[in-house]
C-alpha cells in the first residue's frame, strides 16, 4: 500500500538546493505522524555523490538517477523520471519545490498520475492521519487550507517555509541506483539555449541582508545606492516586480509571489509600496525596514522601523552611518 513521502530533490550548481533539506524535514514531520519513510529522488549525473547529503538531511532511502539527460530540467524528461521514482517508492505524498522547475513539473505530473495537487504550501497540519495543507492565495491576501481526496497527493513547498533538520553525517540511509527508462522519442522539447544570470556576490536567497528597490526609485540608476548599501552591509539587492517590469533590474532578482522568496535577518525596502504580492516573497524576514516618502504606505505600516524621506537623501546618509559604525 502506498505510504510515506517522496521528495523530488533539486540540484543547483552541483549541490542539493537548501529547499531540498527543508522538504525532507517537512517529510519527516509527516511520516512521524502518518507512518512510512522519507524517500528522496535525485536526478542528474552527480546524483550518487549527492545522496549522502540527502541522508544527512533526514532522507531514509535515496533513489539516484545518475543520467546526463537529467542534468538540465525539461518537462519531457523529468515527468517520466519522477513517474519512475513514484512507481518504485510508492509514496502517499510527493513533495516538490515551488521553484520554476517544480511549478512546471508538479501540475503535469499530477494530471499524468490522477493525483490531487496543492501548489505553494507554506504550512500544514495533520489530524487523524489526514494532512491539511495551507497555502497563500489572492496575491498573499488570504490563506486557504485544503485537503486532497486522491490516494496520491502532490504538494509543492515554498522555500524558507520549513526549517531543515541539523545535518547529521552519521545517519543511516540506503541508496538505490535507478534508471529512468525515458523514451527518447517522447522527448519533444528542444533546449536551444540557457542563460544563467550570474549574480555577483551573495545569492539573494542566502543573503542575511536584502536591500530591495521599487518603482519609487525612478529609474535604473536608482539602484546604485542600494548596491552600495548592500555592499557595506554584506547583503544582496532585490527588486519589486514593478521595477523589474520597467527593465530597471533583472527578473531573477524579483521578490514576491511570482519571484523569489527571501527571509533575511534584515530586509530594507526602498521606495516599495508593499503590495500583498510583494509581501508574499519577504513576509518571513526577521526585521523589516521601510524607506519611503509616504508614511501611509503598507510597507511602512507593516515594517519594524521606517524612515520617512526621499530615498535620495536617506540612502547616502544611511550608507555613511553604517560605514561609521563598521569603522
Amino acid at each position, binding site marked *: 500500500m502506498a505510504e510515506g513521502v517522496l521528495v523530488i530533490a533539486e540540484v543547483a550548481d552541483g549541490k542539493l538546493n537548501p529547499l531540498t533539506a527543508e522538504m525532507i524535514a517537512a517529510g519527516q514531520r509527516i511520516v512521524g505522524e502518518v507512518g512510512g519513510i522519507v524517500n528522496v529522488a535525485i536526478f542528474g549525473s552527480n546524483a550518487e555523490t549527492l545522496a549522502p547529503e540527502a541522508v544527512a538531511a533526514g532522507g531514509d532511502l535515496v533513489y539516484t538517477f545518475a543520467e546526463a539527460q537529467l542534468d538540465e530540467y525539461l*518537462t*519531457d524528461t523529468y515527468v517520466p523520471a519522477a513517474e519512475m521514482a513514484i512507481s518504485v517508492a510508492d509514496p502517499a505524498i510527493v513533495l516538490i519545490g515551488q521553484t*520554476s522547475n517544480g*511549478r*512546471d513539473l508538479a*501540475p*503535469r505530473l499530477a*494530471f499524468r498520475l490522477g*493525483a*490531487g*495537487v*496543492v*501548489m*505553494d504550501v507554506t504550512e500544514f497540519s495533520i489530524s487523524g492521519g489526514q494532512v491539511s495543507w495551507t497555502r497563500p*492565495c*489572492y*496575491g498573499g491576501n*488570504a*490563506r*486557504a*487550507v*485544503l*485537503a*486532497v*481526496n*486522491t490516494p496520491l497527493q502532490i504538494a509543492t513547498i515554498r522555500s524558507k517555509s520549513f526549517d531543515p533538520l541539523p545535518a547529521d553525517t552519521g545517519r543511516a540511509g540506503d541508496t538505490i541506483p535507478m534508471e529512468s527508462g525515458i523514451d527518447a522519442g517522447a522527448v*519533444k*522539447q*528542444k*533546449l*536551444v*539555449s*540557457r*542563460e544563467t*544570470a550570474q549574480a555577483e556576490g551573495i545569492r539573494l536567497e542566502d543573503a542575511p*541582508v536584502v536591500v530591495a528597490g521599487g518603482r519609487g526609485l525612478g529609474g535604473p540608476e536608482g539602484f546604485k545606492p542600494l548596491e552600495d548599501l548592500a555592499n557595506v552591509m554584506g547583503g544582496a539587492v532585490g527588486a519589486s516586480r514593478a521595477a523589474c*517590469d520597467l527593465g530597471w533590474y533583472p527578473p*531573477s532578482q524579483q521578490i514576491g*509571489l*511570482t519571484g523569489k522568496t527571501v527571509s533575511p535577518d*534584515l530586509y530594507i525596502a526602498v521606495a516599495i509600496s508593499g503590495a*500583498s*504580492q510583494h509581501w508574499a516573497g519577504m513576509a518571513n524576514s526577521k*526585521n523589516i525596514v*521601510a524607506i519611503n516618502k509616504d508614511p501611509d504606505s503598507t510597507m511602512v505600516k*507593516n515594517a*519594524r*522601523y*521606517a*524612515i520617512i524621506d*526621499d530615498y535620495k537623501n*536617506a540612502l*547616502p*546618509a*544611511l550608507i*555613511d*552611518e*553604517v560605514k*561609521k*559604525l563598521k569603522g
Partner: protein
Amino acid sequence: MKFVVCLKQVPDPETPASAFKIDAAGKKVVPAQGIAPVVSPFDTQAVEAALRIKDAQGEGHITVLSMGAASARDVIKHALAMGADEGVLIDDPALTDVVDPFVTVKVLAAAIRKIGGVDAVITGRQAADWDWGVTGPGLAEELGMTQATFAKAVTAQNGNLVVERVLGDGFETVSIPTPALVTVSNELGDPRYPQLRQIMAAGRKQVTNYTLADLGLSAADIAPRLTLEKLYIPVKESQVEVIEGETAQEKAANLAKKLREAKLI
C-alpha cells in the same frame, strides 16, 4: 495557426488589503464595493502573445475561452476588442465558485476538444485569484500537448513554437512542436489596449455559450480532488517605529544605532 487563449475573470488583484474581505462561513471572497472585476492580468498577456504571433504570420485565428459566470462575458469582450476573433463562454450553475483547478482543466479541455484542430493553447502562468498555476500544465497533459511555461516571448517557426522562458536564475529558449501549450509570464510586456473602434467591432464578434451538457460532461467527471477546509485573512502585526530626526543624516544615524543594538550591523 489556430489558437485558443484561456481567460479568467478575477477580483482586481490591486484591491487594497483594507478592502479585501472574506466570508469565512461561505469560504469565499466578498467582492469589494465599487471595485470591478478584471481579466486576470497574465491572461491579457496571453492574448497579447497570441496576437503577436498572428501579426507576425499575417494569418491565424484566435478563440478566447473562459469558464465563469455570465459576467465573464466582459473578459471575453475585452480580449475580442484586443483583436481576438471569437469567444466561448462556459457558464453552468454547477461551476460556481470552483476552487480546484482539476475541475477547470477538465472543463476547458473538453471545450478545446470541441473547438477542435487547435495548434496552440495559451494561458496565463497563474490566475491572480487562487494563484494555483495548475491550469496550463494540467491542460497540456490532458490534451497531450508539449508545454512551455513562463514565457516572455513566443514566436512560430516552421510549425514549432520557440519560447523564451523566465527561470528563477535566468532565461532559456526551448523549441516545441505543435500542438503546444504555453503559459505566459509578466515579462512578456504590456498587452495592447483596445481602441474605441475595436471595442465597437468586438460587439459584432461571435460569443458561443456552452453548458457542461454541451461539453458532454457529467457531475461525476468533474468531482473535485481537493476540499477547501478553510479560507482566512492572516493577521499582520504592525508595530512600526518611525525613526525620528531633523535631517536625513540624523534619521540615518538613529536607524543605524537601532540596527546596531539589534545586532543587525
